[in-house]
């Protein structure tokens, strides 16, 4: 609670600051009018900056409101955020009205349609689950187009009937005006719907239906609005069959044309991202600018801007995500969310503020209540009717409860309000009544239906979204299912959905990938491979986390044991993360070992007799001091703080340390790893140089960290115990996770042990057969170990319980191994004690 009060106080202060413009403008007015007599030291320049200043302040205020709510989770659990934002909008509006006696701030249609809406639509399109969307596109279109027309027509007609019957008293309107009103208020609002449905996690089919419908029917409703607006302007007498047919044609042209504009822009974006590799910094910017342009272009051509922006987002997501750098993708994602969420917040706050203005309120009980009733009833009827028709054709019919939730989820929102403000007061005498009715409808649906939605979903036991962890098995199986269905359709001679999907996939793979994707992206775009890659990364991060936690904790208690264990895991994982992070490395892997072999042998002779005292150690491992390369600033590049000399130095050092590891491996002498701290500290610094070295040999990158740590070798192989064989193996620069697994299990194999790892590696490479066999031999246990660790790492916060939970898993892993040969006897226990 104190948090709430504090924030409220801040809000009030900000508001007071805002509501002072009258004073401020007077002051500046005085200042500028008079010719100056002396040099002013500071001037009050409110007048010049007040517009951007107010905008920025309002954005800040709205976002602060959101912050306030998130501090009170018990509040947001009951009332959806959108409702709360509207409430605080009322409060703010009240304060402003109290201060100024007029409502200074209102949501302007232009601001709404051109500055607030586009990013929401673009974000919705961009983060749309593609497969689900296109899989249900038919149903979504039926709901969006026919459903919206149904809602508009029935509401208009029913209101007209009541008006004719005299239920509303004396208001100046007509059939066309009421139809127009019906069409503007017909559309389910994506902003409101997403805000509510994101909090109740309904199953994915239901979600995509409601979400897709709300997104597309905005486009439809704007089109309908324009058509009816034109009809009203023409006047009832002018409208004949030709005009109506024209209206219908324009409806389809506007909707389809808008979508096409969106698709064209999606193609453009995808093509652009193909060649933005060298300007990675503004790469994400293109998405936003072009997305916005698609909106504006469609608007310019008087096509449906919302549809255009939606389809732009939906169509381009796959290709740009594949084309762009991973970093840019996450930038786009998060920025998109910032914009969308931000403007959503602003919209709701202003929906609240706009209401506190007596000048817009006209009360007509019958009109308002009837509208509310009709909207509610016809929405349900429409949903039931359309679902019944759709269920005749759907593979998985929607059940009754789903339909209820769909009907109940018909929240109206800001689009309706924006549209109603666009009305021309000269043509529509009852504009104010329409505005107040729209506001009431919005409040009613967002607040009441929004609040009751969650209990309803729980009460009806709607199928919730299954929280499924994507696994490789599932992904592979999904793919098999696809192929299977296509094959069965072929055999039974039917042309069905699967047939069409298969056709499309072939077309996409053949042409679109070629046209829209960079060659590298094309290679790695396979979903099975992708999920494999992601799982690896996930494992790696959890592994590192676990290693850090474990290492740091155990380090304090018992130096020796912890060291061994931690080092082992850490080094291993480090390796893995990097290799899997960069696909290029994956693919370049084949060209690895030959180069470094030569270097090794040369260096070997040169530095045979060298010993490792502390001096040398420092000299080798501390970077040379260099001025002014750490904190350079560049607008063009992300990684500026790397120095070419340093890269050189690091490279040389890597080579040197590789030589050492080679030497030690050959002599049967392995340095123990002691400096676990080094590992951690040096990692970030060294990241940059990876890029430069991996051109020549991708693996130089991978092994430098642990090489580094083993530089100070002193004790022999026996002393090193279990950690040795694996490390030596790592030195060979294997980058494939397939080999990763072998590292741990390397030791039980006596013949391999004696061979320096890279030699083994080259043999393997020349024959090209051995790795697979080796992989077959003993892959299973290490990664399974990995998998088991992952959940543990997530779930445990207390370290003690973590260690407890973990130890059985490790032991288990060990026990699966074949019993190690005698010389290595001690190692199993040594490592995992």
């Amino acid at each position, binding site marked *: 609670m104190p948090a709430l009060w504090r924030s409220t106080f801040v809000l009030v202060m900000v508001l007071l600051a805002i509501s002072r413009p009258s004073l401020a403008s007077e002051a500046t007015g005085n200042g500028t009018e008079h010719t100056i007599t002396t040099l002013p030291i500071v001037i009050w320049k409110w007048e010049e900056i007040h517009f951007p200043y107010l905008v920025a302040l309002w954005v800040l205020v709205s976002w602060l409101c959101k912050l306030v709510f998130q501090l009170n989770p018990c509040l947001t659990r009951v009332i959806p955020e959108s409702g709360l934002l509207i409430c605080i909008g009322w409060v703010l509006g009240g304060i402003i009205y109290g201060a100024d006696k007029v409502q200074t701030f209102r949501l302007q249609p232009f601001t709404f349609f051109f500055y607030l809406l586009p990013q929401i639509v673009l974000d919705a399109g961009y983060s749309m689950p593609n497969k689900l969307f296109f899989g249900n596109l038919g149903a979504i279109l039926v709901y969006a187009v026919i459903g919206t027309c149904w809602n508009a027509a029935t509401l208009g007609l029913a209101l007209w009937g009541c008006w004719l019957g005299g239920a509303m008293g004396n208001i100046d309107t007509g059939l066309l005006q009421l139809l127009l009103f019906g069409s503007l208020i017909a559309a389910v609002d994506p902003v409101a719907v997403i805000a509510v449905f994101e909090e109740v996690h309904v199953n994915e089919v239901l979600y995509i239906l409601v979400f897709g419908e709300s997104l597309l029917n905005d486009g439809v409703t704007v089109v309908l609005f324009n058509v009816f607006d034109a009809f009203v302007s023409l006047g009832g007498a002018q409208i004949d069959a030709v005009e109506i047919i024209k209206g219908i044609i324009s409806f389809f042209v506007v909707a389809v044309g808008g979508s096409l504009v969106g698709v064209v822009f999606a193609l453009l974006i995808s093509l652009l991202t193909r060649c933005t590799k060298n300007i990675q910094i503004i790469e994400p910017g293109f998405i936003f600018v072009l997305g916005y342009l698609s909106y504006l272009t469609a608007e310019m051509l008087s096509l449906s801007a919302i549809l255009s922006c939606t389809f732009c987002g939906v169509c381009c997501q796959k290709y740009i995500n594949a084309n762009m750098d991973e970093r840019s993708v996450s930038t786009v994602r998060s920025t998109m969310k910032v914009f969308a969420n931000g403007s959503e917040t602003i919209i709701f706050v202003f929906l609240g503020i706009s209401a506190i203005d007596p000048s817009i309120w006209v009360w007509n009980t019958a009109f308002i209540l009837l509208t509310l009733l009709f909207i509610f009833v016809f929405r349900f009827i429409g949903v039931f009717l359309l679902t019944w028709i759709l269920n005749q054709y759907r593979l998985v019919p929607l059940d009754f409860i789903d339909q209820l939730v769909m009907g109940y989820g018909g929240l109206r929102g800001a689009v309706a309000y924006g549209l109603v403000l666009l009305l021309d007061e000269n043509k529509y005498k009852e504009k104010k009544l329409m505005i107040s009715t729209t506001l009431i409808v919005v409040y009613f649906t967002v607040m009441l239906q929004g609040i009751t939605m969650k209990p309803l979903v729980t009460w009806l036991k709607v199928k919730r979204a299954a929280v499924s962890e994507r696994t490789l098995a599932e992904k592979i199986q999904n793919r098999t299912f696809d192929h299977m269905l296509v094959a*069965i359709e072929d055999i039974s001679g039917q042309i069905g959905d699967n047939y069409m999907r298969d056709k499309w996939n072939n077309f996409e793979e053949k042409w679109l990938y070629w046209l829209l994707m960079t060659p590298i992206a094309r290679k790695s775009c396979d979903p099975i491979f992708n999920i*494999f890659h992601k799982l690896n990364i996930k494992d790696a991060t959890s592994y590192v986390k676990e290693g850090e936690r474990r290492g740091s904790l155990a380090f304090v208690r018992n130096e020796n044991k912890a060291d061994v264990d931690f080092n082992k895991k850490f080094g291993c994982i480090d390796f893995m993360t990097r290799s899997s992070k960069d696909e290029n490395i994956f693919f370049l892997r084949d060209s690895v070992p030959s180069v470094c072999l030569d270097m090794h042998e040369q260096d070997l002779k040169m530095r045979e007799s060298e010993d490792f005292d502390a001096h040398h150690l420092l000299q080798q491992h501390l970077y040379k001091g260099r001025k002014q390369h750490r904190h350079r600033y560049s607008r063009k590049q992300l990684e500026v703080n790397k120095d070419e000399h340093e890269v050189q130095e690091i490279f040389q050092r890597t080579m040197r340390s590789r030589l050492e590891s080679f030497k030690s491996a050959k002599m049967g002498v392995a340095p123990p790893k002691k400096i676990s701290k080094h590992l951690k500290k040096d990692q970030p610094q060294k990241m940059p140089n990876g890029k430069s070295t991996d051109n020549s040999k991708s693996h130089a990158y991978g092994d430098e960290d642990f090489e580094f740590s083993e530089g100070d070798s002193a004790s022999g192989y026996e002393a090193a115990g279990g950690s040795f064989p694996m490390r030596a193996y790592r030195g060979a620069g294997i980058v494939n996770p397939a080999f990763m697994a072998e590292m741990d299990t390397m030791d039980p194999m006596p013949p391999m042990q004696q061979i320096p790892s890279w030699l083994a590696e080259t043999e393997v490479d020349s024959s090209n057969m051995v790795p697979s066999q080796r992989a077959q031999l003993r892959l299973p246990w290490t990664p399974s170990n990995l998998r088991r660790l992952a959940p543990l790492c997530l779930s445990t916060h207390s370290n003690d319980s973590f260690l407890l939970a973990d130890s059985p898993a490790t032991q288990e892993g060990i026990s699966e191994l074949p019993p190690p040969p005698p010389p290595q006897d001690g190692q199993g226990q040594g490592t995992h004690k």
Partner: protein
Amino acid sequence: MHIVIKLFGVPLSCPITNSMNIWFSCFLFIIVTPAHIVRLYDRFEALDKEKTGHLRPQDFGAINRLAMNPIGDRIIGAFFSPGQETVDFHSFVRILAHFRPADKKHPKDPSMPEPVNSRTSKLKFAFQLYDQDKDGKISRAELLQVLRSMLEMQVTEEQLESIADRTIQEADLDNDDAISFEEFRKSLEKVNIDHKMSIRFLR
């Protein structure tokens, strides 16, 4: 020589040699409705170029698009029970019946044997596509074969192998380095099989 059999108001025209099959299939109408049988019978005849009343693997191979399907030959194989060279209409329908969406309106009669479109039998069908040697387990090599055919050129052999290993580790509960049917079922517990293994026209 054709006879016309009227079955639940649906006239079925079929050669006498196959009438027994048709009748037999009609006992299966719980899993496939008469209308489907008519359609499938037309298809069966179209595939059966030599009019023997039996389909051979070559007949399936003649379907163009099936040849492009990476697991097409496995699907074809699934139609032929072990040791048999041909498939008659009855088995043909029985196999396709796997792909009928589960009927939610009529809850299963416990006294009846499990229908072929139940979740378990659907999964069994999917499972045996992998398990080519019919030992009840998907071995690493078998999985690798499927992966190889599905991932084509994009991925190198070693990556394939590590994917296969990883998949087996995910599913493998008893650490025998292979996926048994139980494990297979477990690994797909969250997947809505009825969605994924159903075809609309068989509804």
